[in-house]
């Protein structure tokens, strides 16, 4: 080779060397960029996974579900997030494990040494335990079957105490940053927060219900107090009136007996006078005969008898009403006594008949076995009266009331059904609420049915209502029968 070629050859070789080196450098750079992109991509994927996980946990904490479901969901999601093979969650109550559930495998999982749970309980912080350190025959077997070598214990705190421990069992090859575990722990706090919130909500709801129930009771008691006060005054008045009427009725009644006797005597005398006048020609006699013909004394006397019978009936009815008024007035007696429900209804009807008679055709169908119940007859009468008056008031035109009693399953069932206009469900729902009324101002207090409800309940019974608009309303009242 000539020297010139040798020089050129060496130069070319150097140029090739430089080119190859440059290529290597560029390849390295490109590879570095690819590595960096891959790294960033992996980071992004990891971040996405974390974000997805936290989002799922956030969603979970928005769902209104029970403790077990929430904890189970959290454990399942964390298991997926950390690629754990299987998991378990245990509830801790008073420092002891109360319930344990395994997720991901069907086999029973041997318990971890209690001191591991105690440590979590004490420290309020997660821990990682290498399963090789746990010298349990069964655990070693499980580790071999599922190729796991460690467990991460995550606490869920509720009201400052560890209430649950989640165990996530991981294979050896899975590695992650401590921040990843921090995410799980944060998610656990979130779940704990949700459990606290749920518990607080439940408490608030319970308190609200308690307050509402107390408030209703107070309202009811107040209504009953007002009503009993009213009834007591009414009762006093009724008793006074009854007493006052009783006296004149007494002497009117007794005078009536005398009056009847006197009338009989006068009638007999008139017969004799009639005969005498017929036999005589005197002017007086003629006038007497004329008068007899025009006035017809026979008719007059028979009519007087009828009138007196009617008056007698009227008096008897007045007496009966007074008696009923008296029994009604005894409404607030403390002592209870057995009474016939059928009689109670009859007596009540008599008291309110005046209100009903022009509008209502009453149909009665009483159980012939005569149900006997225990309690205050006056109060039950008050309930029935309420139903009857309401039914009549609800009638825009004339209508029917069907009232029936029947013995049924240890109760006397009283059904009062009317053919009035009925009520919509919205009214039916509130009908027993104190001060709820559909009547105008000064027409109703809204207490009647609420008090009726209270009275029936006090008698150990129950009252219910069914209504259809345009058809009518039925009230069913069940009062326990006196046991034989």
């Amino acid at each position: 080779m000539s020297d010139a070629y040798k020089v050129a050859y060496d130069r070319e070789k150097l140029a090739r060397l430089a080119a190859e080196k440059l290529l290597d450098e560029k390849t390295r750079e490109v590879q570095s960029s690819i590595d960096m992109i891959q790294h960033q991509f992996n980071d992004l994927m990891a971040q996405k996974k974390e974000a997805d996980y936290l989002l799922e946990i956030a969603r979970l904490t928005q769902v209104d579900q029970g403790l077990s479901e929430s904890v189970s969901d959290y454990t399942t999601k964390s298991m997926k997030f950390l690629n754990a093979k299987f998991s378990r969650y245990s509830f801790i109550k008073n420092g002891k494990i109360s319930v344990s559930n395994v997720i991901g495998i069907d086999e029973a999982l041997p318990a971890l040494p209690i001191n591991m749970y105690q440590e979590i309980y004490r420290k309020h912080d997660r821990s990682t335990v290498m399963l090789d350190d746990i010298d349990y025959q069964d655990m070693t077997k499980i580790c071999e079957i599922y190729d796991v070598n460690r467990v991460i214990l995550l606490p869920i705190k509720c009201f400052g105490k560890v209430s649950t421990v989640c165990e996530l069992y991981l294979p050896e090859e899975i590695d992650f940053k401590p921040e990843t575990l921090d995410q799980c722990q944060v998610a656990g706090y979130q779940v704990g927060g949700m459990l606290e919130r749920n518990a607080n909500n439940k408490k608030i709801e319970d308190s609200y219900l308690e307050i509402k129930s107390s408030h209703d009771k107070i309202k009811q008691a107040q209504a009953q107090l007002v009503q009993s006060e009213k009834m007591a005054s009414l009762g006093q008045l009724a008793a006074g009136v009854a007493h006052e009427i009783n006296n004149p009725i007494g002497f009117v009644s007794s005078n009536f007996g005398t009056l009847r006797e006197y009338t009989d005597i006068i009638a007999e005398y008139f017969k004799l006078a009639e005969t005498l006048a017929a036999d005589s020609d005197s002017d007086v006699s003629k006038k007497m005969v004329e008068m007899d013909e025009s006035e017809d004394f026979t008719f007059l006397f028979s009519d007087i008898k009828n009138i007196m019978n009617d008056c007698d009936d009227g008096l008897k009815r007045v007496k009966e009403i007074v008696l009923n008024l008296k029994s009604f007035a005894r409404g607030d007696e403390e002592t209870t006594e057995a009474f016939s429900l059928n009689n109670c209804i009859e007596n009540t009807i008599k008291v309110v008949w005046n209100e009903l008679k022009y509008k209502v055709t009453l149909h009665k169908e009483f159980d012939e076995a005569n149900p006997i119940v225990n309690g205050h007859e006056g109060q039950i009468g008050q309930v029935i009266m309420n139903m009857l008056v309401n039914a009549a008031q609800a009638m825009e035109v004339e209508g029917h009331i069907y009232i029936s009693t029947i013995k049924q399953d240890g109760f006397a069932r009283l059904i009062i059904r009317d053919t009035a206009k009925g009520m919509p469900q919205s009214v039916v729902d509130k009908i027993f609420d104190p001060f709820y009324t559909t009547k105008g101002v000064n027409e109703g207090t809204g207490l009647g049915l609420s008090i009726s409800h209270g009275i029936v309940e006090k008698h150990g019974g129950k009252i219910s209502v069914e209504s259809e608009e345009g058809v009518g309303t039925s009230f069913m009242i069940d009062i326990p029968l006196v046991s034989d």
Partner: protein
Amino acid sequence: MQGIIFNALEEFVLETADMEVWNALLESSNLESGGVYTSGVSYDDAEIVSLATNLCEKLGVPLTDGLRLFGEFLFGFLISRGPIELAMYPNTQTLLQNLESVVHRDVKRIHPDAYTPLFEYFPTTEHEGELTYLSKRKLCFIAEGLLQGAAKHYGQSVEMHHSQCMHDGAENCRWNVTFT
């Protein structure tokens, strides 16, 4: 085998003999590649074997000695082409300990298809240790030469006792090495 090794062999021949020897070698070896080698390309392993065998025959040197000498030369050639950090290691031991994790990893990054031998160094003392070599090519004599070249580069000398060899049916080659 990577083209760079063939480039090194060419350089070795030019240095120890001359261009005529190399041309004759290429001609007599009946190569598929035609003797045109580019550093980043992989060539058939048989070509390096045939070139090495023919070269030793031509020069009248035993193959093992020839390979050893080439290995020693190869190290200097490679270090001049590789990343600058390699040349900056304090000693051969450090290089050996980083060979897989740094050097061969870098090779794989640039040439993902490249096959690299596995070297492992287990130091027993600061200056002594055991070196293992595993390769499908079983070029343990080049490996010995490489180590000699490395020691020379880092200003050391090395004594190697080949205690186990793949050519004797062992699963890998082993040397007890002492650096001074």
